[in-house]
């Protein structure tokens, strides 16, 4: 991997996930200070601030970069704010990385934080009859778990996944997150407890669906040259690829918040367009010049326990229909061949939308530095994240040591 495509990760920081009920700016600020301290830099050293937006916290959330910059104290740093739904954090990382690779700045701060309401995510207010996100609730009563459940049922039908398989994903992730100080849920869960929890959207149960959380995450990124000059406390970790791809037509898998897929009547469903999710990480691997066999650990978006199994295949850890075997063989458990969600994943965190894709990268950084106490994947050198934001936002980051 040539230097000219890599950026250094000097610092990673988080505010713990929970249901704290405070202003999202507090979480972002705490995470930013944590990352700056980790980087041994002070706030005035930052030349560019890249914020990941939240849409449920009023105007300050729409211009999150400036909100965090103001909270840290105006220094004249350049700023950007971006929204890409669940992929917002990766989009903010991509913006900071582009500034650094273009030589427009040496060192940048990426921040995302959220305060979430209780219960199902609902569309933002107002009656909008031309907004598919409003219409899917109004006309269908289709919540986010509706879509997760459609994928889960499809897995059961196509590949013979069982209720026990889905429960085992939850059991694994609960065990992974036990010692993670930033995780919201730190409790051993048994298969029976999962199966005894109420069905929300058949076949998915309450303990298999990720909660909505408050939290904040931040990264300090720099050019490789700056990192060498500044020096790193431990092994230098770098971001070697960021994928923010969109789907290819025709996208024939139903995607939140749509009512329908693309029509393949005119063009057929070719290999390229067949499915969006596998294309997300494929683009990141290509950019990093690696393949799935090189990956030591992965942080994937387990919005549901069943969706984690889809990701195993989508990021190339196994072939289609083989994810259940990978899980049952213990390959994706810490100590196995390629641990997935050593942080505990969304299962232990819940989702703080704009912070989540950044948090995935934070976990990879700590893992590759050997600082993931109580959940360390030994000797990890290459980590990958995968995530998808509604309305066609892919997100995948390759982190290497």
């Amino acid at each position: 991997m040539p230097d000219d495509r890599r950026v250094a990760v000097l610092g990673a920081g988080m505010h713990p996930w929970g249901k704290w009920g405070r202003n999202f700016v507090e979480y972002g600020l705490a995470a930013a200070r944590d990352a700056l301290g980790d980087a041994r830099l002070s706030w005035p050293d930052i030349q560019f601030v890249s914020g990941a937006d939240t849409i449920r916290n009023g105007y300050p959330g729409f211009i999150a970069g400036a909100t965090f910059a103001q909270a840290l104290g105006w220094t004249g740093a350049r700023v950007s704010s971006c929204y890409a739904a669940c992929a917002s954090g990766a989009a903010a990382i991509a913006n900071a990385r582009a500034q650094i690779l273009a030589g427009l700045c040496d060192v940048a701060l990426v921040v995302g934080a959220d305060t979430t309401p209780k219960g199902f995510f609902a569309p933002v207010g107002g009656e909008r009859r031309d907004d598919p996100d409003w219409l899917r609730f109004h006309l269908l009563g289709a919540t986010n778990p509706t879509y997760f459940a459609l994928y889960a049922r499809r897995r059961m039908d196509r590949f013979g996944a069982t209720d026990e398989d889905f429960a085992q994903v939850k059991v694994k992730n609960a065990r992974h997150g036990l010692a993670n100080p930033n995780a919201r849920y730190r409790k051993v869960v048994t298969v029976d407890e999962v199966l005894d929890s109420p069905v929300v959207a058949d076949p998915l149960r309450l303990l298999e669906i990720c909660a909505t959380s408050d939290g904040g995450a931040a990264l300090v990124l720099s050019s490789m040259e700056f990192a060498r000059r500044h020096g790193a406390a431990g092994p230098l970790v770098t971001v070697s690829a960021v994928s923010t791809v969109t789907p290819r037509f025709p996208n024939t898998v139903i995607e939140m918040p749509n009512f329908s897929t693309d029509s393949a009547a005119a063009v057929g469903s070719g290999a390229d367009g067949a499915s969006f999710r596998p294309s997300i990480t494929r683009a990141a691997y290509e950019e990093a010049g690696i393949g799935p066999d090189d990956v030591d650990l992965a942080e994937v978006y387990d919005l549901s326990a069943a969706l984690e199994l889809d990701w195993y295949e989508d990021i190339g850890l196994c072939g289609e229909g083989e994810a259940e075997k990978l899980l049952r063989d213990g390959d994706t458990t810490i100590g196995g061949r390629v641990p997935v969600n050593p942080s505990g994943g969304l299962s232990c965190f819940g989702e703080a939308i704009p912070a989540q894709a950044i948090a995935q990268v934070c976990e990879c950084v700590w893992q590759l530095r050997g600082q993931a106490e109580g959940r360390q994947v030994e000797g990890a050198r290459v980590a990958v994240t995968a995530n998808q934001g509604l309305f066609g936002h892919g997100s995948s980051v390759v982190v290497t040591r």
Partner: protein
Amino acid sequence: MPALEGWFTLDPDNPALLGSRCPRCGTYAFPAASSYCANPACEASEFEQVPLSRTGRIWSYTDARYQPPPPYVPADPYEPFCIAAVELAQEKMVVMGQVVPGVSVEDLAVGDEVELVLDTLYRDDEHEYLVWKWRPLGKGRSA
């Protein structure tokens, strides 16, 4: 009256979703395309409105055990319902819809044939608002 104007016909016997077909490349869309074609190789800007296939096969399905938040307008008391994603053969696309009341997930399977019907989404003091729903064929056809 329809819960949303122009998305489906109100034919009491053979209702259909109103989609579009691109006159240039043949791509279908639902909701109907009005200004652009989803096919990146096509620059059409005008589209034929067409009724979509009234039957299809279940791609996947689930249910809603808990009351969805607004803008969903629930019955009082809340009644759980099923949702199906249905593959239309001619259009080569999948369209979601609620499943008619009285059907539970135990009655459904991937690949089952279903038919489009109109049913009540909710009522207020003045109107009954209609929406499309999927009804399993071979079960409760008179429902």
